[in-house]
């Protein structure tokens, strides 16, 4: 009887493997947490999109919960994301934009065309802040708490459903 049970070991191992592989099939291979979660927002010294002479740094993100959105005129999904960002701004979320690897002219034109939900847009032409944030494709969004610590990372575009089901609850969670 004992020997019979031993014969089951390969079958059990096989079933365990099947379960793991099956789970792997339904997982998004590109989804992974940011390395910066629970870390301070990286320091920066960048001019704003509207005014090249006005420099801003990390203190911009202290004092209240802010959603930092990395966008660019060259990025098609950023255009699809703008209505959701405008809605978030309407509902009282403070938004700061990072115009990533863009030209000032194109960035300004983009905001004119699609609306401007951002309190401030930082201008990051060579992608230095994006690099420190670990951004590998726009749009990406980072929720920063009142102490300037990154609390939530959204890769890719914020869908209309995400506004209600993900972003607003996260904002509320860190506002307390």
């Amino acid at each position: 009887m004992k020997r019979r049970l031993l014969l089951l070991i390969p079958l059990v191992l096989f079933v365990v493997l099947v379960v793991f592989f099956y789970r792997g099939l339904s997982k998004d291979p590109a989804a992974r947490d940011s390395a910066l979660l629970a870390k301070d927002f990286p320091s920066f010294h960048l001019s704003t999109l509207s005014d090249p002479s006005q420099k801003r740094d990390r203190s911009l993100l202290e004092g209240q919960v802010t959603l930092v959105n990395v966008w660019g005129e060259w990025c098609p999904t950023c255009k699809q994301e703008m209505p959701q960002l405008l809605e978030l701004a309407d509902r009282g979320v403070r938004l700061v934009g990072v115009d990533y690897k863009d030209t000032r002219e194109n960035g300004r034109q983009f905001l004119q065309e699609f609306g401007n939900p951002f309190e401030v847009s930082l201008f990051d032409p060579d992608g230095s802040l994006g690099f420190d944030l670990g951004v590998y494709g726009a749009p990406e969004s980072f929720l920063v708490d009142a102490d300037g610590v990154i609390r939530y990372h959204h890769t890719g575009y914020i869908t209309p459903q995400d506004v209600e089901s993900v972003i607003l609850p996260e904002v509320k969670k860190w506002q307390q």
Partner: protein
Amino acid sequence: MAAVMRGSASRVWSRFGVSIGLLLVSLLMSASVSAAIEVQDFQDPALASRYADLSSRLRCPKCQNESIAASNSPISADMRARVATLLREGESDKQIESAMVSRFGDYVLYDPKLETRTWLLWGLPFALVLIGGSVIAGFVIKRRRLAQRSLDDDERDRLASLVARHRAAGSEAGEDTTAAGAEAGAGKLRARPKGEN
């Protein structure tokens, strides 16, 4: 006449040599172009080889499975540029790796770090080899012991009586009492004790 012919032959040969030379040069150049998309000029060959090594060990975060050396995506270009800058600033390979991991996560390392979180990942292959090896060793030892065991008295008696019966049957049937026939019969019988368990 002969001199003219020799001259033209040597010209053909030298032309052949030149074209082979050009071919080799172009092959070499294409190899260096495909290895790095933009040329990083290092004065120090040691830095250049560390650059090549690091950029093939770091994984492009945008891609599923491409090193930053092989990938054409903009983020890989940024990362290569940063690796080159940090190398020139004199940072160690470890420091450069951790600078990338702190921004893009463990994903960018093809070889994950060995730490408590990853001991299962690193240890499992060795554990499986050990388990498999000991199972096979167990089988082999058991087989060998069975094969080496000689017949006990009961088995020997049984064998003798079976051989005798076989001989009797053979002599009844005809002339099959040759040594070969007896041996074949004994061989068949000898296989039996092994199979019992």
